[in-house]
């Protein structure tokens, strides 16, 4: 037993001072902190500096742009006040000399049309007057004269109306062209991210054109879409004769606040902390497991490559050697995890981690983390020990190690299943697969609160596999660690194991 402790102590001290241990212990938290804070900072930044300016172009309607703008501003108060804003900018055309002339002509034509309209109406009124005075001797004459005057005035008015329509159409075309041209140029110089085009058909058909140079994150446009939807519904309701007050009452916005039941207490569900915290915990679990089991792999490969292993085997049994290594490096891994926990404790003390929001951060879960860390480490350590033993040199070991590393990526790749449905049958079943158990169970704990039975089964299955894997690894180590020149075949390993 003394040799076991000597070997464990040697391995512990050997890697405790290694650069890779120090890096993985103190750099990993910085990387993970970066994983949390960089998106958060980006999010924060995007709220202030990335307010979106969107243009609004309106044809043949009035005040919709204004209305949308007011609604957008009003909704910010209802939502998170720090959310990125959409600023709506109505776009008016720049007045050119040609447009000014055409406007003037249009006004003149309108004035003329109004005058002729008025004159026509006056003639009509006069005729009505003459007609009603039936006793006048000049009645017939007056009616005949006024008739000619009315026909002549109407003809002039019709001609003026045609001219006005022509000019109106010309101006409309020019204005549309000028407005759209200006909107496009604002888009090109990035003054606006895009612009809305609103015309009378917009609310009838329920389609609003959004012009932009590049696709825009649809999530960013969601508030705008909501406002337009609101206005459209209002318009339709108004069309149905519902009063404005009733409309406002009916359209009162709602917000969903999710509460999660945990034991007898309920906690508010926050996506970022609920999902991100366990994912970060899993990343720490992985770094912990693979730092220590990686050291074990390196230790065995180094001793084999440096030809130390035969001297060691003459002094200690293969089980003492492999067991001592696994134990010593397991202690190192545990030490690393405790350092991380202490760091987390420190951050909680100085209120840098919102412990109340992260339901994962409890003493029970810390214990669970340690337990699954140890089980995961022991399993992968045994796999790594066996793999390292059969390698011929460092290059060969690297290739074999890659295969184990690929295997180790499965839990991370499949973690999305837990995030989507933490208590589905598939996830429950996969939780009992030994090399998936630590990740799945630790992810399920805050997300799905699995039944106690699931913990017992996953731990039980893992323990059985670990015992088998450690025994097998010890035998492989004994059999294959002295084969230096060629990678032993499976047959020869099995033969060695059988006789050893």
């Amino acid at each position, binding site marked *: 037993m003394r040799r076991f402790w000597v070997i464990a102590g040697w391995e512990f001290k050997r890697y405790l001072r290694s650069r890779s241990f120090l890096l993985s212990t103190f750099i990993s938290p910085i990387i993970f902190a970066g994983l949390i804070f960089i998106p958060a900072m980006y999010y924060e930044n995007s709220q202030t500096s990335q307010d979106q300016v969107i243009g609004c172009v309106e044809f043949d309607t009035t005040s919709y742009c204004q209305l949308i703008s007011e609604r957008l501003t009003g909704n910010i108060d209802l939502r998170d006040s720090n959310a990125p804003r959409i600023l709506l900018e109505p776009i008016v055309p720049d007045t050119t000399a040609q447009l000014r002339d055409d406007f003037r002509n249009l006004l003149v034509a309108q004035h003329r049309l109004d005058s002729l309209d008025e004159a026509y109406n006056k003639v009509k009124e006069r005729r009505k007057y003459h007609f009603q005075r039936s006793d006048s001797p000049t009645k017939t004459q007056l009616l005949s004269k006024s008739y000619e005057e009315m026909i002549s005035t109407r003809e002039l008015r019709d001609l003026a109306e045609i001219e006005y329509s022509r000019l109106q159409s010309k101006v409309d075309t020019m204005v549309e062209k000028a407005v759209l041209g200006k909107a496009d140029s604002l888009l090109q110089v990035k003054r606006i991210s895009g612009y809305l085009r609103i015309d009378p058909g917009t609310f009838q058909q329920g389609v609003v054109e959004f012009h932009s140079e590049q696709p825009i994150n649809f999530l960013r446009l969601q508030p705008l879409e909501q406002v337009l939807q609101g206005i459209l519904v209002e318009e339709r309701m108004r069309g149905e004769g519902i009063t404005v007050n009733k409309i406002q009452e009916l359209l009162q916005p709602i917000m969903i606040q999710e509460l999660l039941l945990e034991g007898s207490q309920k906690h508010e569900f926050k996506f970022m902390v609920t999902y991100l915290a366990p994912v970060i915990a899993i990343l720490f679990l992985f770094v912990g497991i693979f730092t220590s089991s990686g050291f074990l792999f390196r230790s065995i490969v180094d001793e084999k490559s440096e030809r*130390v292993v035969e*001297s060691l085997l003459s*002094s200690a049994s293969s089980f003492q050697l492999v067991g001592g290594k696994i134990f010593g490096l397991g202690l190192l891994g545990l030490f690393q995890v405790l350092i991380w926990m202490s760091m987390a404790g420190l951050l909680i003390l100085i209120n840098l981690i919102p412990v109340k929001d992260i339901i994962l951060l409890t003493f029970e879960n810390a214990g669970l983390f340690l337990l699954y860390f140890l089980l995961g480490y022991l399993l992968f350590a045994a796999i790594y020990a066996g793999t390292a033993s059969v390698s011929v040199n460092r290059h060969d070991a690297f290739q074999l190690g890659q295969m184990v590393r690929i295997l180790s990526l499965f839990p991370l790749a499949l973690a999305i299943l837990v995030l989507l449905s933490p208590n589905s049958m598939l996830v429950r079943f996969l939780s009992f697969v030994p090399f998936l158990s630590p990740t799945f169970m630790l992810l399920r704990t805050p997300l799905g609160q699995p039944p106690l039975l699931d913990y017992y089964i996953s731990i039980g299955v893992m323990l059985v596999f670990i015992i088998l894997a450690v025994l097998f690894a010890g035998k492989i180590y004994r059999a294959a660690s002295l084969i230096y020149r060629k990678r032993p075949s499976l047959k020869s390993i099995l033969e060695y194991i059988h006789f050893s």
Partner: protein
Amino acid sequence: MHLKADHLIKALEGKTVVSDLSFEARAGYILGILGPDGAGKTTILRILVDIFRPDSGAVFYEDQPMNRKIRNAIGYLPEERGLYGEYSVNRNLVYFARLKNLSRKKAQVEAVRLMDRFNIIEQMDMPVALLSEEDRQKVQIMCAIIHNPDLLILDEPFAAMHPNNQTLVRKLVQHFKDEGKTIILATRALNEAETVCDEVLLIDQGRAVLQDNLKKIKEKFRESLIYVEAAEELQSLQDIFGVKRMIQDEHSARLFIDNQVATQKILDIIIRSVNVNKIEVHRPNLNDIFLEVLHNGHQKGKA
């Protein structure tokens, strides 16, 4: 420590490497396990230090099977030697001493004592990887003996050794012998072994072909030997009067001579009979004996 190997059999990858081998090693004697490459020497030593378990048969140390106490009393210098290159001489020595059950304090004391004795004390804190090859070999030898073993097992102790270290090993082996310890060394260098060993176990293909006290073996094979090299067929030399046996290769032959017949006379006949490139007369060394034993074995096999 008295060691007894009893009917050892070991197969590796379907091939019998050690075949029904029995031998003894006594305290105060040096046993040489000798044979060519692939004869099974390393496998035998690995069985003796309990790295391999025999498929059948057993090894007894002072009439006991391997146990913790015995393991601590064995010093082993393997053929494939290595150390923790990134660690200092002192740290390597202390670790190996601790693995042999020495307390931390005792391990440190013994490490310093050995480093002083082997004149390497000034490099005690230097990483092993930075040492010269000669010094590195010294540290390897020191790791094997730091716990003052009762049974010292050396695998190819002269192979790839610096000449100074070869002398060191010879002295060390003699010192252990003088202290009444048991020494077993395996080597393919038969001539080296001849100068060191008291008892010899000659093996070929895992089988013992000759096993005795070296003096007795020499006594047994005491007739003179003429070694001849020529570019032509040497078969006719076997018929020369006074030649008892001949072992022939393609262009060389070993002629064992009847001591009653004058050697000079035989030499004259040989020189007259064939166009000799090289000819020498000497007492048979272990190499010659090994070849003769193998030859006889093959002849018997054919018969």
